């Protein structure tokens, strides 16, 4: 059984973000990078399935980006993936979710993956489109926002998180793609010996130009901090007048007195 997990390296969210010179995305200088949190759940679930299936399964990890993403790939190899594909693209951050999904689908289409894991969304762009688009392009069945996962006899049983705390269960035939949500599992710490052994696992480097054939469908026009809110309103006058003013504001601008 062939498994694929797609990961993205994102900035540590505690970083100070500054727009780049074009104002179209954040400036990457001096940021600390980590694996996207949702992808960690995807990796953990894929590794658990790899362990459940034993040596009849092969788990490949894929990431698109510049050289720095190799660190995130190596963490995944240390967590238990068998091998990796690094699609080298220094400009991955400028591509829209459609292009990213198309690149992954172009790589995966003739590889015969039975099951693909992705995060529910990335912590930086947050489009939540890549996973479902890959499934569509490959013609795979798909379930999103998984908080529970089981695999038995060719069938995936996925517990999904719905609005308002409600859960749903769907069953999928392979080939399938699932996107993973917080609460699905607790990702393991990679052990140090496995970090050292990951050095010996194969990372295949592919040029993005060989896989990318589509134009973007969306363009990020602007990246900026929210406008600073104006100061509060200071009411003046005697008490009767103040109360009238306050009631007026509460009626006009809030739902408190309707």
């Amino acid at each position, binding site marked *: 059984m062939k498994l694929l997990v797609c990961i993205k390296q994102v900035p540590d969210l505690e970083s100070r973000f500054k727009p780049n010179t074009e104002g179209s995305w954040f400036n990457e200088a001096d940021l600390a990078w980590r694996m996207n949190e949702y992808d960690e759940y995807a990796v953990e679930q894929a590794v658990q399935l790899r362990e459940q299936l034993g040596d009849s399964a092969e788990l490949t990890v894929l990431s698109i980006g510049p050289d720095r993403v190799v660190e995130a790939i190596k963490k995944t190899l240390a967590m238990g993936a068998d091998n990796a594909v690094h699609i080298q693209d220094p400009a991955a951050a400028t591509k829209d979710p459609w292009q990213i999904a198309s690149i992954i689908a172009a790589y995966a289409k003739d590889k015969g993956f039975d099951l693909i894991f992705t995060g529910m969304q990335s912590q930086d762009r947050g489009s939540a489109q890549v996973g479902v688009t890959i499934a569509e392009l490959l013609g795979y069945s798909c379930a999103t926002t998984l908080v529970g996962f089981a695999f038995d006899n060719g069938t995936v049983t996925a517990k999904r998180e719905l609005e308002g705390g409600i859960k749903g269960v769907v069953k999928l035939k392979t080939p399938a793609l699932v996107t993973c949500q917080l609460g699905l599992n607790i990702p393991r710490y*990679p052990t*140090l*010996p496995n970090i*050292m052994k990951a050095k010996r696992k194969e990372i295949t480097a592919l040029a993005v130009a060989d896989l990318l054939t589509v134009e973007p469908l969306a363009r990020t026009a602007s990246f900026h901090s929210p406008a600073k809110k104006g100061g509060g309103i200071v009411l003046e006058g005697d008490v009767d007048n103040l109360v009238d003013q306050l009631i007026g504001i509460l009626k006009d601008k809030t739902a408190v007195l309707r």
Partner: protein
Amino acid sequence: MFLDLTEEQKLIQDTARDFAKGELEPVAAQLDQGCDRGLLLANLKKLAGLGFMGLNVKEQYGGTEAGVVAFSVAITEIARACASTAVTLSVNNMVCEVIQAVGNEEQKMKYIPKICSGEYPAAGFALTETGAGSDPSAMSTQATKDGDFYVLNGSKIFITSAPYAGVFVVWAVTDREAPKGKGISCFLVEAGTPGLIIGKEEHKMGQHASSTNELLFDNCRVPASAMMGKLNDGFRIAVAELTGGRIGIGSLALGVGLAAMDFSTRYATERVQFGQKISSFQALQWMVADGYTELEASRLLLMNAAWRKENGRGFAKEASMAKLYATESANRACYKAMQMLGGYGYTQDFPIERYTRDARITSIYEGTSEIQRLIISREILRNFS
């Protein structure tokens, strides 16, 4: 010149940082206050499972074989959250390395995997005595040959992890007539050996969760095969192995210093006095600048010593310089941090007083600052005479 960590070293640093943040930081104050030994041991077990007990130990003995730089950055990250856990790690690693350096194959296979795997929660380094601190060659614990056995008599003090250590490296005098330092040998003594008694626990100023005890030998018989290294070569072994341990303690001190400066600097950007953030006052800005500059210098000294050891270069002077500077600058960082927090820093509602207590011992144990200066100056003066 390349000053970046390798990908593996970065991943080890990240793992240590994530573990420290997730598992150690939330309980560090509780460990400091209540001496919850069970919790400390549970965390040590997890750290062993992740491979933190034998960072610079060969894979064949259950080690991680990640090198000395990885060891240093890992200890620093652990110490940022909990100095008591970090010192236990540092000593465990040091004991593994002593056995790996001078033990025979049987001794290595017997003990190192048990320390690395966590089967032994800890391991002990039993050198110091009441009359032999900075001057370990003045020790009086004796090992007397009796057929195929040695009989140990005497006592050790300040032994880290003694109540839960599975094995101790013990130094004892085997030739009373020999010149000072030439008649000491080194033994591996298992916990539970009749005649090995764990004595009273010290009530320390800091690093409370790590137990520090007296160790007594009352006709403690060990087989002659428990001797590690050559007869009467023990003092040389102790001196050589303490050098590596200094990188560990310097790295620990760096972690505590960084924790203190990070906490106080964040505080200074939030605390308002005289109508402005106190970080806008130059007095505090200079504390921030000086504190972090010294810690960065410590880090570079430690990386240099670790890199030299890892690459088979001489590193005694460099390890002493790193230990001296890192531990003293960590103490200064804690002093500044408390000054920045003012009265709050002196209370147990904030972690600065714990950092201050935890940092204080680092310029004392594993060679006082004065001993480090002695080693450094001796190495330098040798080149001038």
